[in-house]
């Protein structure tokens, strides 16, 4: 059970990471900075619980606040550029954050043991959950409360005019400006929201994994973050969840019995999926199919 809960936790955390990129994708921004925000959230929350002895919830809260603020500040220069330039600019930011934590040291002595982030050696023993006797079920519940909350908020926003405005900016920035939408504000809002969610994901990750170092926050993670919504399709939030389950559940864990062939298959499967379903697993075609199946069920129940 422990194993499956762990997998469910990983899926939850990656879903949050994917959703942080999803919001930006709605406004047409392809950001590789999410790994950077994720890292900032992870380190902040871990420093708060380990060094300052905070509780997990306030730590997560402050971590979200700080990453949100950072995303807001980074947004200004980064959103000056668009398209491929933005991809590379955000990639650069992500690498910058990684290099920062690569050089970041803050060691304090607690009960005769030195703890805290230690540059390239990483930041280990973030054992809040274990030390406070949280069971696996409780950890999973905590993570999924956040996941469901975030998914619900984004899904809800998508039904409102705000969601339509986000998508309008994503469809055509120039046209959005000429119908009176403040494109900069919308993009900054998306960037900040994305940062907050990535920070949340990071702070959960830190406590789930217990050890942080710069290796975890490379371009690879950033690529995963954008891969989820792209694979899942941006028509709604559930696509991202499905994509995370597909990658983390099926490809990474489910195919474990394939041993070292698994990673070979991983790349190949991404290529296949993008060729077969270029608009994501959850494209309008699939949605229509799901709807028709649901309708079939309903009609049968009625008759």
């Amino acid at each position, binding site marked *: 059970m422990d194993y499956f809960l762990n997998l469910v936790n990983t899926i939850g955390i990656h879903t949050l990471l994917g959703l942080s990129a999803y919001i930006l994708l709605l406004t047409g921004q392809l950001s590789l900075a999410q790994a950077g925000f994720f890292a900032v959230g992870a380190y902040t929350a871990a420093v708060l619980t380990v060094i300052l002895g905070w509780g997990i919830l306030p730590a997560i809260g402050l971590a979200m606040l700080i990453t949100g603020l950072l995303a807001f500040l980074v947004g200004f220069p980064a959103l000056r550029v668009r398209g*491929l330039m933005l991809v590379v600019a955000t990639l650069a930011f992500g690498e910058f954050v990684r290099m920062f934590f690569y050089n970041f040291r803050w060691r304090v002595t607690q009960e005769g043991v030195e703890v805290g982030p230690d540059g390239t050696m990483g930041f280990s023993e973030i054992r809040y959950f274990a030390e406070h006797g949280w069971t696996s079920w409780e950890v999973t519940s905590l993570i999924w409360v956040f996941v469901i909350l975030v998914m619900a908020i984004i899904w809800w926003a998508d039904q409102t005019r705000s969601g339509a405005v986000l998508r309008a900016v994503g469809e055509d920035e120039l046209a959005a400006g000429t119908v009176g939408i403040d494109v900069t504000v919308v993009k900054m809002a998306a960037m900040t929201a994305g940062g907050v969610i990535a920070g949340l994901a990071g702070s959960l990750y830190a406590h789930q994994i217990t050890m942080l170092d710069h290796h975890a926050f490379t371009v690879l993670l950033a690529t995963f973050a954008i891969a989820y919504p792209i694979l899942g399709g941006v028509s709604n939030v559930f696509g991202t969840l499905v994509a995370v389950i597909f990658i983390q559940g099926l490809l990474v864990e489910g195919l474990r019995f394939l041993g070292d062939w698994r990673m*070979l298959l991983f790349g190949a499967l991404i*290529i296949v999926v993008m060729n077969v379903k270029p608009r994501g697993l959850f494209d309008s075609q699939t949605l229509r199919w799901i709807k028709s199946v649901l309708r079939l069920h309903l009609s049968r129940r009625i008759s």
Partner: protein
Amino acid sequence: MDDFWFEFVEVTQSIGDGVLFGSTYALIGIGFTLIFGAMGKLNVAYAAAAMAGAYSSLAIYILFDAPLVVIFIVSAICAAILGYLVYLTCFRFIPVHNHLAALMASVGGLFFIDEVIVHATRGSPLAFPSMFSEAYFEVGPYGIRGDLLFVFFIGLISTGVLLYVLFRTRLGLATRAVAQQDVAARLCGMSIHLTNSTTFAVAGLLGGIAGAMTAAAVGILSPVMILPLTIKGLIVTVIGGLGSIPGAIIAGLFVGGFENVVMYFRGIDERDMYVVALLFIFLVFRPNGLFGKTITRD
């Protein structure tokens, strides 16, 4: 004064080494920019295919003990074939306007190629034969590595050939035409897929040379080189201005020199930070890169 002179020599030497080594970045950058110019898309798997080309040529070297010139040629040809395969798998059948899907597919391509290399070599680094590795010219206080010089000239020659092909041949005309107006190009009797696959193959050709050059300059091949090279290539492409070949060359040489001089003064821990900062400065003050297109009229 002596100290200053010594320091001066060291710094200029570092820049020189970096610039020479930068020619490999330039070639990778040209590959990215060429494909971007032709299709408006990013082929992330490009550097991986380039290194795979170098690996294939290494296999030829080990199996047949082929001469060094052959290795470079084989590397180029293999990378060209791989480039074509990447086009076929990651771009050919994906709708033209779906940039995200193509980008993602090429990320898949990167993972796949990377893992195939790991699978074939167990991830172990392998010695790569180097041309003129013993040649080391001492000019006054400076030392110039013969192999880097060779790498630099190969880089220059391939760039020259590329520019010639692009602006003086039918193939080049078709490539540019397809890039600028694909429907009109078809109406002129050009085949889009043929032209695009040729572009990928040509870019692969350059990548294969770059891969072999990098491997020769370092003396070893390892899958851990792929990701850093991809990132450097992207940075070079953007600094040079997307779609600009001269931009990619100059940016490649510039980044090579720049990172080496930062390396000299600030060390490795800060080197990449400064390279990234350089990119940021360009994005803020010159968002279109060195030779990027300026805004055209609506």
